[in-house]
């Protein structure tokens, strides 16, 4: 049985998928490579840098505009070649086919995607939030809080072990109080 974990977010790109889970001592990332899953951990104790930014994703927008535009272009060519009948009924299927791609590109351009990246000493975890902006902020704050807590605990642990190493004076037995 693996250690309990909760899903924080995911990052889906054209050729990479990554799911990020929160564990007791850090973040666990699972990225897919064909049919294999590669698991990595970013320990809270090792975190150096947490970033938050918004991006459009130029490839996503370009590809969707290109596919949507292609459907509209084909529709326009066919409508142009027809001389009789109602043109709207001929154009409508092409507009319907183009609409999802153009809507997706427009939504991405307007809303943008929020990216939270956690950099450790040896690995990093990336999460992308397309629609849940508040959740992205919450995750960013939550990770920073967990990292601060982990670093405080580690400092405390180090201080305790350092204090234990300091030689103590012998117990004052038999001495008059």
């Amino acid at each position: 049985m693996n250690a309990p974990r909760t899903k924080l977010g995911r990052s889906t790109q054209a050729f990479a998928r990554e799911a990020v889970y929160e564990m007791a001592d850090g973040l666990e990332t699972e990225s897919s490579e064909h049919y294999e899953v590669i698991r990595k951990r970013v320990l809270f104790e090792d975190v150096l840098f947490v970033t938050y930014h918004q991006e459009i994703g130029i490839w996503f927008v370009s590809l969707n505009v290109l596919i949507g535009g292609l459907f509209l272009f084909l529709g326009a060519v066919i409508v142009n070649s027809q001389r009789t009948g109602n043109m709207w009924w001929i154009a409508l299927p092409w507009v319907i086919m183009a609409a999802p791609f153009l809507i997706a590109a427009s939504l991405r351009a307007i809303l943008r995607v929020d990216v939270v990246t956690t950099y450790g000493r040896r690995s990093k975890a990336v999460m992308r939030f397309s629609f849940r902006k508040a959740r992205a902020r919450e995750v960013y704050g939550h990770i920073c809080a967990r990292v601060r807590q982990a670093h405080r605990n580690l400092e405390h642990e180090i201080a305790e072990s350092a204090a234990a190493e300091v030689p103590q004076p012998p117990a004052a037995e038999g001495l008059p109080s």
Partner: protein
Amino acid sequence: MATLAKKTGPYEGPECPRCGHLLGDDVRRTGTITCPYCQNPFEATAFNPPQRRLRVVEVVQSGPEGANACANHARNTAVTSCQRCGLFICSLCEMNLGTGSYCPSCFDRVRAEGTLSAATTRYRDYRSMARVSAVAGAFFALIFLGLPFGLLTIYYARKGIKQAQSEGASTVGVRISAVFGVLEALAGIATPALIILSVTGRLK
């Protein structure tokens, strides 16, 4: 002056989340940062994690009668023994995975064998394989290949269910794949049987 280095190959450290260039210590700070390379801003929180200090007790300190020496470092006192081979190991050699302590060589072996789930960093995703096999089988069933694909789906689904249960994840998706696998296998048996029966004239 900002330290810049072009990122190449695997992860090397904190980098600009927009352009992927490595960021030096002088650039990393809390607040809004403008990447010195791509000039794009991003919000960041920088941390300076304290270095964990490992306390290594030497045999000289603890006394020869009170301690065993580490098998790899004769001067160091052993703090535990390897769970797999029983070798005495010091705190430098100890690989504690939460479920037990291992010596470095045994850790490498259990990691390569994949027998220890906590040390596994790469494994096959049988749930995805079952899903893909079920979908492919639905198409290949049309050309009488339902039986091999169905059996393959059942095999992957069985492994996928075990995997999901060990991870505490939902098994609904993989169970649906298993049902598809059974249906494909049955279709793979029924279709040739029906053809044979109809050809021989037994099916009226």
